[in-house]
């Protein structure tokens, strides 16, 4: 059992199973849509988890990258002769470049100071998306053209369910690969002790930047997928609250746990749907649940439960 758990393919395989099971188990388009939103958020959360959970660097501005990916898909085809899918690729590249340029100076900061710097970055992106209404449609948002793949028009909830689910599985697989590679070991090492990582040859500044860029790529990809899936996008996706949501997903599910990011995303996306019956008590319950989980499962849901199960054995 333990060995199965530690296999490199355990997390992506488990996620693939969940995606497939839900794909056939969820009857209505509504449930498929919620699930697809979970996959998209989980992808972003995995990206942020690589940065926060593995490399130990906080970001309160990751929705900024999400917004860059989303708006690249929306704006790209309007200003360049590119298809939405190509625009998605360009958007991811743009997010990577911006992450590189922004990350170089701000990753020198530590802890809460890094948090406030990333928060500032996120707000800058939000302001640009919200203010440049000529390009972005402003706060009311803008439509996104439908993507086509080999002449096949990508629309319909079930199509996007499988696309987003597939990307999530691949994303989880790549994340696990990274974590188990020399790069991943370097990241986890600098999380625990920067100085010890340095004296065995890890270029700490470079690896923080690597983690920042990779996580930006994940998040931008997620943003682009949401834009294509929804066909309409507003600057809220880049907002401060959205950044906070990603952080909550990572911490709630468990820092350093890929499956945890999926669990965190599922809770944050599905809970408001489940709580909608409570009407105005919805946020009351949401806040309470957040507190209770973090007080009693302080390492995050998945790692805490795994530890509990381990103790039970």
């Amino acid at each position: 059992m333990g060995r199965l758990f530690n296999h490199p393919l355990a997390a992506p395989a488990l996620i693939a199973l969940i995606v497939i099971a839900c794909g056939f188990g969820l009857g209505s388009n509504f449930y498929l849509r919620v699930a697809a939103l979970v996959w998209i958020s989980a992808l972003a959360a995995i990206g942020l988890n690589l940065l926060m959970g593995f490399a130990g660097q906080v970001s309160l501005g990751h929705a900024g990258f999400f917004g860059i990916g989303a708006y690249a898909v929306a704006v790209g085809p309007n200003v360049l002769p590119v298809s939405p899918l190509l625009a998605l690729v360009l958007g991811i590249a743009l997010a990577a470049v911006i992450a590189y340029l922004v990350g170089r100076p701000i990753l020198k900061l530590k802890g809460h100071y890094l948090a406030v710097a990333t928060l500032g970055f996120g707000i800058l992106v939000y302001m640009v998306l919200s203010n440049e209404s000529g390009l972005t449609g402003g706060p009311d948002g803008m439509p996104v053209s439908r993507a086509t793949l080999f002449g096949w028009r990508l629309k319909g909830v079930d199509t996007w369910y499988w696309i987003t689910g597939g990307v999530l599985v691949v994303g989880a697989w790549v994340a696990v690969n990274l974590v188990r590679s020399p790069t991943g070991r370097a990241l986890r090492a600098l999380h625990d002790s920067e100085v010890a990582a340095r004296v065995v040859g890890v270029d700490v500044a470079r690896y923080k930047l690597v983690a920042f860029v990779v996580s930006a790529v994940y998040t931008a990809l997620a943003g682009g997928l949401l834009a294509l899936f929804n066909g309409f996008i507003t600057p809220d996706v880049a907002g401060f609250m959205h950044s906070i949501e990603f952080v909550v997903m990572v911490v709630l599910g468990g820092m350093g746990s890929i499956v945890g990011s999926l669990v965190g995303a599922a809770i944050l996306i599905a809970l408001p749907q489940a709580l909608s019956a409570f009407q105005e008590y919805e946020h009351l319950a949401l806040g309470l649940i957040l507190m209770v989980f973090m007080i009693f499962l302080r390492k995050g849901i998945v790692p805490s439960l795994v530890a509990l199960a381990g103790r039970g054995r």
Partner: protein
Amino acid sequence: MTALSVRDIGISFGGVKAVDSVSFDVEEGSIFSIIGPNGAGKTTLFNLISGVYLPKAGTVSLFGEDVTGVAPNRLVARGLSRTFQNLQIFFRMTVAENVMVGRHLKEARGIVPHLLSLPSVVRQNRDSRTEAIRLLDRIGLAGRADDLAANLPYGELKRLEIARALATEPKILLLDEPAAGCNPKETEDIERLIEAIAADGVTVVLVEHDMRLVMRISNRLHVLDYGKTLASGTAEDVRTNPEVIKAYLGTHGAEEAARARR
């Protein structure tokens, strides 16, 4: 050949000269110990040599090349590695992974193959692990390779740091109080380990409080007090140096020294 040469090195914190114009040379393949009372500046000196602190004055050379102010991760490529007085273990990683991080510069570091887990990366991971297990075997921890480092007792973590440093295949190794907090049995293990490392041709620079250990294994010693050099020489030279006895070993140490001479 001289492995490490320190010349007139110094640094101060808030006006206090933590290390003041210290110079010494370490012969390749030897065991060189730096001793001195608490607060004498031993660890600070290590931090200066290993690039963790930038010296205010003086130079550091490795194998004849000036490396003053070179970042720690670049010094590794020049053959220098170290351990820490206060444990700097990667607690969230397994024991084997801790050592594998030490193989960092020996591994291909292209990010794209890592993301895709190409066969070359899988093979390399396997090789790194094999090497890590070999080193763990050397320090008697092979059986705990897949345990979380956080679950190991203090003494084993001390040895784990040495294994991690050895994984970089250093030519010169700085050990900061490797026997601190260890029981006599563990201390003996560490002594044998250090001797074996030196026997492999690795130059060892040692900071240690356990005088028996130091006196037994050191080729040369360097004594610091208040950041300044107090004495330098062989174990016998230092042991008999009245300055050292007075300033460092104190009354209790003086008696012990006297007993040792008898």
